[in-house]
């Protein structure tokens, strides 16, 4: 790779990395500041800017290829001698993710110009889509944990606004709120992880941290920090128990679901796990693995009984993310990333294809002035004749999801299984392996069910509608993504995952026996699916469809108690705290009344008493001047007698 080494020029690298990051932000800025009259310009401008961003990403990737970790230093602000960075860390993982994020975002932008044509708020849509791309690339490029956190929250914000795009629909807003809130709960844990890291290593830079930790002995704080950071991962990547926002997020437009809730944002958690792999102690990794596989199982079961095609895909995403997290839990972060990449392509393809179906049936609905839920599988069926192209893309990406050989999904699932088997050295770990195989079985089942439900059989409600394939601008991205679901994108040998992509030292060893077993397992599952879903769905269950009523538990044991507590504090504030103040006020007035009484009766009373004394004394002495002559005589005589007696005796 000597040629590429010559290409490495730090300034070029920095420029192109900045371009990749900032071009989508420019798209956001234009969309935000331009007036509604020029909305059509935004619809043209946004995909173009993201295309430019994609090209810069490719340049960056090409420059970095084979050169290890390249830093791009951009200081943010300095406090007490420590400079928080806003710089980039470019290594194989990040440039790969960069290209994928830009590519999928670009394809979704192009698709959206067709899907969202005629939407009154198209400008707002593309504005936030650009902002999302910016924030997601920020996560990918960031070289320190604080930047990751900043962009992490911004991605959550963008996701929230995009889910709530159709803001007049109450369910959409509720779903948006739920998404942000559950992400926030995860982020609170992430914040505690940040605090732990800061107080124990004094730095946020990923490379500095790795160095600092290499010297230190493995301490309890690392497990705590790792688990706290995993909290953030669980929120963003929809792991148990914070995954309930993802099915509800399907209220947003389908391209948004494709970009954010399949390919990129939810993958950010896996990406973070890989970035922070050095902090995960074995104990933390065990927790991660268990959480991952539990999520995978629960979501796969739930997917089996959904009627809404987007919800099936949502639960499928959660399940696949669970597998990725489980793989990460074995320490094989590269394997998790491989599955992330393959999943990004085939899941985005699935979502966009589902979007094509929804779009096509919706158009037919409009013309015929009918109304039924286009996303409900029970209304669809037999659409293979009407939408052949979409049928094919569904089959291609669905096969990748199911892990059928010759498709990308098979390779990455293989890798996960070998990683798991390599890791399983004692009792409970084998359970995880078994569960993983169970999940892959279920994956085949629900994928088959979905494709069959939409395309096989005969048309029912849609029979008299005019349904046609969506325009080329929507079909082209889907085709590209479907193409990427096939094996040769990732490895030359369709059965071995060691290809040009997987370059990590922790390559799981390749067992031919495993390959054969998994091939047979998938075929068995296909056969079982064909058999089980001949007629009705035996997995029809309200329990599964409502994900074991997890949402109701949250509502009952978390949301309502918090609201009750807030009502209590409000009453406490009003009755007791304010009551004490009012009591002191009343008390003070009472004391004032008492003092007034005291003043009036006792003090003034003494004054008045003195006056009264003077009055009665005067009255008494005045009585001597009664005007009665004889009394005068009497008193005079008496006094004389007393005087005489006194002087003479």
């Amino acid at each position, binding site marked *: 790779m000597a040629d590429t080494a010559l290409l490495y020029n730090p300034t070029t690298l920095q420029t192109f990395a900045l371009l990749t990051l900032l071009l989508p932000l420019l798209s956001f800025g234009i969309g935000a500041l331009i007036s509604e009259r020029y909305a059509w310009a935004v619809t043209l401008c946004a995909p173009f800017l993201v295309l430019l961003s994609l090209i810069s990403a490719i340049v960056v990737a090409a420059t970095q290829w084979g050169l290890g970790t390249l830093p791009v230093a951009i200081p*943010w602000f300095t406090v007490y001698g420590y400079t928080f960075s806003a710089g980039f860390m470019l290594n194989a993982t990040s440039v790969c993710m960069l290209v994928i994020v830009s590519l999928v975002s670009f394809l979704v932008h192009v698709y959206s110009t067709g899907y969202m044509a005629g939407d009154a708020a198209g400008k707002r849509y593309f504005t936030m889509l650009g902002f999302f791309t910016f924030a997601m690339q920020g996560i990918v490029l960031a070289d320190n944990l604080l930047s990751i956190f900043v962009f992490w929250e*911004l991605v959550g914000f963008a996701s929230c606004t995009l889910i709530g795009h159709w803001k*007049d629909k109450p369910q959409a807003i509720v779903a948006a709120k739920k998404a942000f809130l559950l992400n926030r709960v995860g982020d609170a844990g992430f914040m505690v992880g940040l*605090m732990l890291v800061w107080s124990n290593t004094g730095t946020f830079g990923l490379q500095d941290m790795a160095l600092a930790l290499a010297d230190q002995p493995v301490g309890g704080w690392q497990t705590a920090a790792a688990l706290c950071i995993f909290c953030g991962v669980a929120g963003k990547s929809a792991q148990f128990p914070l995954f309930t926002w993802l099915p509800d997020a399907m209220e947003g437009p389908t391209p948004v679901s494709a970009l954010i809730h399949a390919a990129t944002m939810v993958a950010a958690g896996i990406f973070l796990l890989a970035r922070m792999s050095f902090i995960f102690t074995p104990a933390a990794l065990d927790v991660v693995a268990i959480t991952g596989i539990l999520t995978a199982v629960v979501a796969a079961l739930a997917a089996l009984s959904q009627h809404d095609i987007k919800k099936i895909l949502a639960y499928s995403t959660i399940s696949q993310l669970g597998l990725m997290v489980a793989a990460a839990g074995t320490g094989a972060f590269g394997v998790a990333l491989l599955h992330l990449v393959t999943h990004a392509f085939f899941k985005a393809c699935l979502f966009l294809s589902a979007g094509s179906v929804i779009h096509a049936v919706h158009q037919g609905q409009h013309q015929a002035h009918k109304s039924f839920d286009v996303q409900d599988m029970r209304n669809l069926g037999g659409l293979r004749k009407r939408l052949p192209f979409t049928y094919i893309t569904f089959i291609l990406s669905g096969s990748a999801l199911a892990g059928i050989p010759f498709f990308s999904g098979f390779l990455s699932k293989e890798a996960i299984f070998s990683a798991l088997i390599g890791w399983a050295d004692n009792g409970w770990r084998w359970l995880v392996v078994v569960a993983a195989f169970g999940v892959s079985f279920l994956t085949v089942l629900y994928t088959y069910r979905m494709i069959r439900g939409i395309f096989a059989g005969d048309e029912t409600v849609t029979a008299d509608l005019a349904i046609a394939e969506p325009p080329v601008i929507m079909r082209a991205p889907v085709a590209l993504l479907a193409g990427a679901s096939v094996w040769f994108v990732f490895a030359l040998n369709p059965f071995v995952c060691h290809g040009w992509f997987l370059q990590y030292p922790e390559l799981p060893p390749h067992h031919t026996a495993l390959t054969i077993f998994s091939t047979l397992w998938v075929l068995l599952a296909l056969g079982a699916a064909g058999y089980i879903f001949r007629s009705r769905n035996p997995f029809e269950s309200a329990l599964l469809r409502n994900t074991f009523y997890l949402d109701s538990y949250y509502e009952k044991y978390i949301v309502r108690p918090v609201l009750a507590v807030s*009502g209590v*504090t*409000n009453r406490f504030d009003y009755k007791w705290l*304010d009551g004490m103040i009012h009591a002191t006020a009343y008390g003070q007035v009472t004391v004032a009344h008492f003092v007034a009484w005291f003043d009036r009766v006792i003090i003034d009373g003494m004054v008045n008493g003195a006056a009264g004394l003077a009055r009665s004394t005067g009255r008494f002495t005045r009585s001597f001047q009664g005007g009665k002559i004889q009394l005068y005589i009497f008193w005079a005589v008496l006094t004389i007698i007393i005087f005489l007696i006194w002087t003479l005796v």
Partner: protein
Amino acid sequence: MQPYLISLLIFTPLLAALAALLMPAETKTSFRILTLAVNIFQLLVLVIMLRSWDAAAGLQFVEQKDWITLNMGSWGTLQAQYLVGVDGLGLPLVALSVVVMLIATMASWTVYKNVKGYFTLLLILNAAVIGSFTALDFLLFYLFFEFMLLPMFFLIAIWGGPRREYASIKFFLYTLLGSILILIAMIGLYTSVHNPNTTGHLVHTFSLLHMSDANNFISNSIFDPNNVRMIGPWNAREWAFLFLFIGFAIKLPMVPLHTWLPDAHVEAPTPISVILAAVLLKIGGYGLARIAFPIFPEAALHFSSFVAVMGVISIAYGALNAMAAKDLKKLIAYSSVSHMGFVLLGLASVTPEGVTGAVYQMFSHGVISAMLFVIAGVLYDRTHDRTINNYSGLSGRMPAYTVMVLIAFFASLGLPGFSGFIAEIMIFLGAFKAPSANGLLHEAFAIIATSGLVLGAAYYLWTMQRMFFGPFNLKGGIPAESIYDLDKREYGMLIPLGVLALLFGIYPQPLVDIIDPFARNFTEAVLNTGRNLGATLNP
């Protein structure tokens, strides 16, 4: 010109108030223009101050003039000076006050009742606020501190809502109680501190600078660090700290001394709410950082866990109450209680990050809560109804307003990219680091405080969902014609505040540069002096 900038800031509004009193009351516009001119003039002075600010130089623009010197023979000399200056703590708050006063003047444009009295009081309030943030003499500070209460009382009592008499009296008496406690401490300090620059003759001084130096205490005075007397469970210095703490905590406001705030905010007119939330609350934090902590550092260290716990309680309690609030202004008032809890936590941590975060939070919350109250005012001006449940789907009729609300709410809940996030993360880092860095607090405080993040998101998003999204519907007899989008004046108020919040979230370095030297000095002073004094008191 340079040295007199602070006096310009303080006395221009006072002179303008005097001029306003002399102007006839019929010309309403002239009062508005006068006040606006004063505010713009103050803004210009502020710009000059910022341009000549030297971050490394500590206190700047210091003015010192003899004010009261009373020779009392054998009892020494009473000396109170006109001593003003700004440093890393005061400058952001002075800047905040100038900006917020300008916004408040713009918001006061629609006051129609007794305009002369209103703007006169507003100008007096302006002067008092800036005086409080710059005074370095305790008596002068106390003077300005008290001076703020009376205009506020009248402003709420005359131009406020239905329960304004109750709210204004409650506000006035409650904060006056705090002032009395501060007065007691001040008098004690006056008798205990002497001016070291005058030899021979004993000069009692009110200067905060002299009070912060532990060597200036007169021996055998009540606050002499070498010879304290125990009064009950604590010694005299700790009692003084507690008095100062409670006095300023009432203004902060800290739970459980906060109940005056919801009533004052709900009943006050919009511009007054803006000033109350954005500026007056910060005096509490400023007082703690300027007076309580530096003068009694060992008591501060002794009580740091208590202060931090009260901060955390304020964060959680304020957020929970905000969730249960039915009135939009009450919700924002309680969210202010919650955010000021962060300031307490940051100060209690006595770490550079924590203290920087606390001052940053004071500035950031000032800007953001000003924006929030202007937003509440926009709605109230139109419909005179603040009940959250009466509104639904406002985004259709008021799209620009919805965007502003989105910005304000997300800034307030600490979304990165806004100044609130910078402040909160520094406080979290400082508070979590404190146990290992200087042996104060406990990690659990910072962990529990993160619940404020989740609760903040919860009540703000819920409010947005209820009021702005969904189908358009008005209850409570609000006519639909009263819902129209922002006018130019409202844009003029909201956009600068939003830009400030965004600017200091993306590019915090200028503000951090201003605060950092202060935070460092504060931390060192409190920790070192506190530990030394603590050692002498408890050998």
